[in-house]
């Protein structure tokens, strides 16, 4: 996206994505070119702001959900320790009661 000079005069071109390819699209020179350039710049700024907003939102969400992983770890370790002390042992992923108390 930008200005290009043809025969000594600036003309505005816009980049258009088509699948994986990007092609240049002629817009025009003079007032029309300047207006299109301003609109494109506004759109770009808006996209950047939205992306920043959602990046922040995502970070906030991830941070507020961290405690669930911590809670899972704590409950898993504590349950395991309590069950072992209560006379159970884990065999092939299944908890079983020990036949004799150790």
């Amino acid at each position: 996206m930008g200005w290009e000079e043809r025969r000594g005069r600036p003309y505005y071109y816009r980049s258009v994505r088509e699948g994986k390819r990007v092609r240049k699209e002629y817009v025009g020179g003079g007032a029309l070119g300047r207006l299109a350039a301003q609109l494109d710049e506004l759109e770009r700024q808006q996209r950047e702001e939205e992306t920043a907003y959602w990046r922040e939102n995502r970070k906030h969400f991830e941070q507020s959900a961290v405690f669930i992983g911590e809670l899972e770890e704590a409950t898993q370790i504590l349950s395991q320790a309590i069950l072992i002390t209560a006379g159970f042992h884990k065999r092939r992923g299944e908890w079983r009661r020990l036949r004799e108390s150790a």
Partner: protein
Amino acid sequence: MKALELSKNMKKRLAQLQALSDRVQDGDKAARRELRRAVRESSPEVVAEASELARKGQWALIKTAAAGEPLAEEALIARLDLMRAEVAGENPSALESLLTEKIVAVWILSEVLELLLTAQLAGGNDVQHVPHSFLKFYLGWQEQAHRRFSSAIRELAKVRRLQSGVPRSQTNVQINVSPYANSELRP
């Protein structure tokens, strides 16, 4: 925003419990005595700190779900209290209380994700729309939250069954949880 995490001291205690449990599982009889002592000494603190963390985390999620609406906040708090009482039942053990907090936490996480996604899919001008990559991110989280919810319920049921000492075939484990029933905030 600071991430909600367990303290370093608590992580150290949990690591000790894990190491001792592993040693007992490997047949170390001396470790069993040590583990018993460690559980006796550590469990009240682990339960207290993890429960405190759970409450803080739930509160953060409630704030997100309610989006600044005091009435919605109150409704969610009441809903969580009710759910907590239903899941924990009468006279829950410390471990049952902790597992209950986990179930409640994952439920509120599911609810937040459900609200975020419903708002996105329903459209409307007052909602800032998420780019596709973020929508995919939230959908992934939602799927994970559903899995975690089922797994948390199974874990509580397993602990109750094992602690009751009744063989599996004779045990009816009932946990009164309906993740989406009667939710005041449900759109």
